[in-house]
């Protein structure tokens, strides 16, 4: 941060500061901030007691538990597979690598509702691999496992694409050096490579987690949305409250979700600031 004494004006040689600042702030406010603030404004009308009553309804608490736990599990699975996929895509050459690489973004490109209905169909008793799995006694559709499957689907690009660029810039001389020094390959990986990748993996994890907790379209078909089985996710509950015109509940739940999102985003920011500090220090 540059601070100027004596109120001297800062020179901005490149034109357009005022204009771009004006447009950016205006559009950001009207399209994003003000609508979100309206949610906050409305939920502030509730007394703390009302607020806590609304968010401690059994099905709301259960939905939060489902969303958070399934998103955590899915983000963890995505971290493992994301790391592996990134590794395979960066370090190995094989036939079809480009196609594999290109497919990673599919969950970004495929509408969530389409993913939702097809996953639900695939993992139902009549689909493949759902029929096969339920033959083995493993029901996926309409269970928590189904929710995790859907969240793994939507979350995988986040972890792969967070780790991949870092792995690309990681000089292989670095690990070769460790290897020549006599470290075993497993040791090299965990002592040299993994610590380098960890911040980006954590970023990918957090992004997948944030997305998973709020996910709606891809989840609601495969989950079955049963209050009894505890397969309702938070987004579904908000939508249900909206449909019943129960705005107080909807905003109260949304506020909690917003807080969770902000905490995760804040965490991501801290990870990234730390990383850039460390990189700059080297």
């Amino acid at each position, binding site marked *: 941060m540059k601070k100027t004494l004596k109120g001297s004006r800062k020179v901005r*040689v*490149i034109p*357009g500061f005022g204009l*771009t*600042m004006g447009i*950016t702030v205006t*559009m*950001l406010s009207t*399209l*994003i901030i003000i*609508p*979100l603030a*309206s*949610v906050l*404004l409305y939920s502030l009308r509730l007394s703390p007691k009302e607020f806590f009553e609304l968010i401690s309804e059994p099905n709301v608490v259960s939905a939060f538990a489902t969303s958070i736990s399934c998103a955590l599990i899915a983000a963890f699975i995505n971290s493992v*597979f994301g790391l*592996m*996929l990134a590794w*395979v*895509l960066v370090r*190995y050459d094989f036939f079809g690598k*480009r196609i*594999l690489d*290109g*497919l*990673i*973004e*599919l969950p*970004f*490109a*495929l*509408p969530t*509702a*389409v993913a939702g*209905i*097809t996953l639900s*169909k695939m993992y139902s008793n009549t*689909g*493949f691999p759902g029929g096969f799995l339920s033959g083995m006694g493993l029901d996926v559709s309409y269970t928590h496992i189904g929710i995790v499957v859907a969240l*793994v*689907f939507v979350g*995988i690009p986040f972890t792969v694409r967070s780790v991949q660029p870092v792995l690309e810039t990681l000089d292989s001389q670095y690990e070769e050096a460790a290897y020549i020094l006599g470290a075993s*390959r497993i040791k090299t990986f965990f002592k040299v490579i993994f610590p380098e990748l960890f911040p980006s993996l954590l970023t990918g994890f957090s*992004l997948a987690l*944030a*997305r998973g*907790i709020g996910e*709606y*379209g891809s989840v609601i078909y495969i989950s079955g949305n049963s209050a009894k089985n505890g397969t309702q996710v938070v*987004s579904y509950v*908000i*939508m249900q409250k*909206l449909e019943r015109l129960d705005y107080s509940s*909807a*905003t109260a739940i*949304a506020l909690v*979700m*917003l807080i969770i*999102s902000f905490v995760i*985003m804040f965490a991501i920011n801290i990870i990234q600031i730390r990383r850039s500090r460390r990189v700059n220090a080297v």
Partner: protein
Amino acid sequence: MDYSDKNKTFSRKITKYILITVSVLFIAIMLVLPLVSVIINSLKEGIAFYFKSLSTNYVTSALGVTVMATLISVGVNTFFGIVASWLLTRFEFRGKNTLSTLIDIPFSISPVIAGLAFIMTFGRLGWASPVIDWINSTFGTDIQIVFALPGVVLATIFVTFPFISREVVPVLNSVGHDEEEAAALMGAKGFKIFRKVTFPHIKWALLYGIILCTARALGEFGAVNALSKTRGQTFTLPLEIDALYMSGSADSITASFAVSSLLVVIAVAVLVARNIVEYRAKKDN
């Protein structure tokens, strides 16, 4: 010595093939299978049924709404993305990090909350509702936002808001602002600098962002779901898919997969376009 070295290369190769196999299997089962499954399900009742389900009034109306919402939000967000990227990379100012975090908000919150946000702003309980009523009664207009097309458009803009700037900002940061400074020193005006100096650097990133933004806008479901209630009027394709699927009959489920197959084709096209753009961008450098 020789023996153990051979052993090491061997175990390296084994690891490599195991990792590649697992990766390919993961992608095949998790990502490719769903695509195939959509196509198979959509053709269950034959080709004739497939085309019939694509040509209902509901579907054509939904396609129209989707295209309109997508075009408007891509336009708005492209404009915003360019302006915001210029601001965030060409100037130093206090609060820059905060601003950039705020722009990224739509990434990390549930789309359903985006829908809720517009309902709480423009809906009957929203603070802006009297303003709109006043406008309507004063000017004799009939503007509706929530549960009407403007709401659908606003929701789509909301969820795709950061897409362009997220692609352009890193490129502009890595290019640096020497060239713009040099041009400005020679007295060039902002728009000329952008057109002649900056734009060639960002054209691929911009196109890439537009492609992603288009894909997301076409497929947006949660936010639009909260704001759109009239099938055949304000429904987008994903909402139409939902309506068909939830109606429960075997025929309509097949029809919903038929409509889905349209979006699958678009998704694949997006992936291909993305890869071409990435390839061209690399070649350009």
